[in-house]
Structures are given as structure tokens and as C-alpha cells.
């Protein structure tokens, strides 16, 4: 996951590198995703999300569709 100056720059990279299905995310959504995903990583009782939990988490952030499916 990379940062891009703009959607145009992301699209140029996508075309040049051959990843036509790549998806961009706003920084706000990326921050929400990071907080949801990693907030407990340093806690003793941390555990990985199950596939169902991860897909549900994506969905709460509006990240739905085939791109965000884990199976």
C-alpha cells in the first residue's frame, strides 16, 4: 500500500505497473482502517482477526465488494 499525490498519480502508477484492479482509499478511511486493525496489536490479549471479523470490519468502513473479500 503506497501513498500517492493524487488520484491521477495513483492511476498512472496503476497503469504503468499493470495493476488495473488497484483501489484507492481516502486518508480518512485509511486512518480508520489502521485504527480498527492495529489498535490492540501491542496488547497481551491481542489476537488476529478471523476472516469473518476482518470482512465485517472492512464492511463497517464501507469497504465492500470482491476486492475486499478474503476468500
Amino acid at each position, binding site marked *: *500500500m*503506497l*501513498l*500517492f*499525490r*493524487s*488520484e491521477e*498519480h*495513483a492511476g*498512472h*502508477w*496503476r497503469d*504503468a*505497473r499493470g*495493476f488495473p*484492479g*488497484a*483501489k*484507492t*482509499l*481516502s*486518508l*480518512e478511511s*485509511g*486512518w480508520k*482502517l*489502521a*485504527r480498527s*486493525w*492495529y*489498535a*490492540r*496489536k*501491542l*496488547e*497481551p490479549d*491481542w489476537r*488476529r482477526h478471523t476472516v469473518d471479523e*476482518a470482512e465485517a470490519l*472492512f464492511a463497517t468502513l464501507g469497504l465492500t465488494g*470482491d*476486492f*475486499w*473479500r*478474503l*476468500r
Partner: protein
Amino acid sequence: MPLEITDPAEIDREVRTTIAECIRDRGAVPSLAEVASRAAVPESDAGESFGRLAAARVMILRPGTTEILSFNPFAAGPTDFRVRAGGRDWSALCAWDAFGVAAALRTDGLVLGHCGDVCGVPLEVRLAGDAIGALDGVVMQFALPAREWWKDIVFT
């Protein structure tokens, strides 16, 4: 004197929490030797645990070694994504992990990276509570669909 822990799940928990403590206490991802010493487990047991934790996608090892490349989101060495958070400087393998450093530390952060396109322009993102500070239009891009992320997690 090493602890007499024989249950792999117990060793893995001890090793994982020790890595987390090192990150909190020292601001750095520890070596295998440091984890074994701090957790008081034999280095061979800690190494086996590193392998299990990597297989379980808790962390990523440097290829062909039993040293940590990233206890996601915390990268062990310099990368293209730097983060200032909690009074320290950190590294992350990708933009999501860079944001994740501040998230895991539960603090605000400043992410320093570059545009992934050929321009390579430096980009800063300030993460402060629910607020984001960055140039207008900056975005994060995922090259691969979620189900393919772990096929080559370092590239991802």
C-alpha cells in the same frame, strides 16, 4: 535460568508479548536473542516460536532467517515510510502500516513518505485524533485485492 515452558502456545504468547514490550519500552523491534533473553526461554525455542508466529501472520521474518522484518505495523529497519509518534521515530513497510504505528501506540503521528508514482514527491500526513492533515488529494492505494495480500506480503 530459562523458564520451563513447554506448551508451544504458551511460548508463543510469551514471545509475542515480549516483542510488544520491547517495542513499547525501547521503541525498537527486538532481535531473536533479545526476545529469548527477556522472555527467559532458550533461543532455539524462541526461534521455533518466531517461525510459528510468522506462519500465523502475526509478524514477518527476514527471508531465510529467524529475525523479524516487521512485527506489523512496526518494521525492524529503515523503510520508505517513516513515522514520528509517541516521541520516537519508527519505520513501516507500507502506508497502512505507517498509519498503524500511530494506531497501535494509540497516539497522534506524522507519517513521512513519498508519492509512489515516478514524481516521488515527499508527502507528509499528520494523524491527530480523528483529524488528518495532508496536501489535498493525497490517497492510499492497494495494488492487490485483500485475498492476495499475504501471497507476497512484503510487496503488498
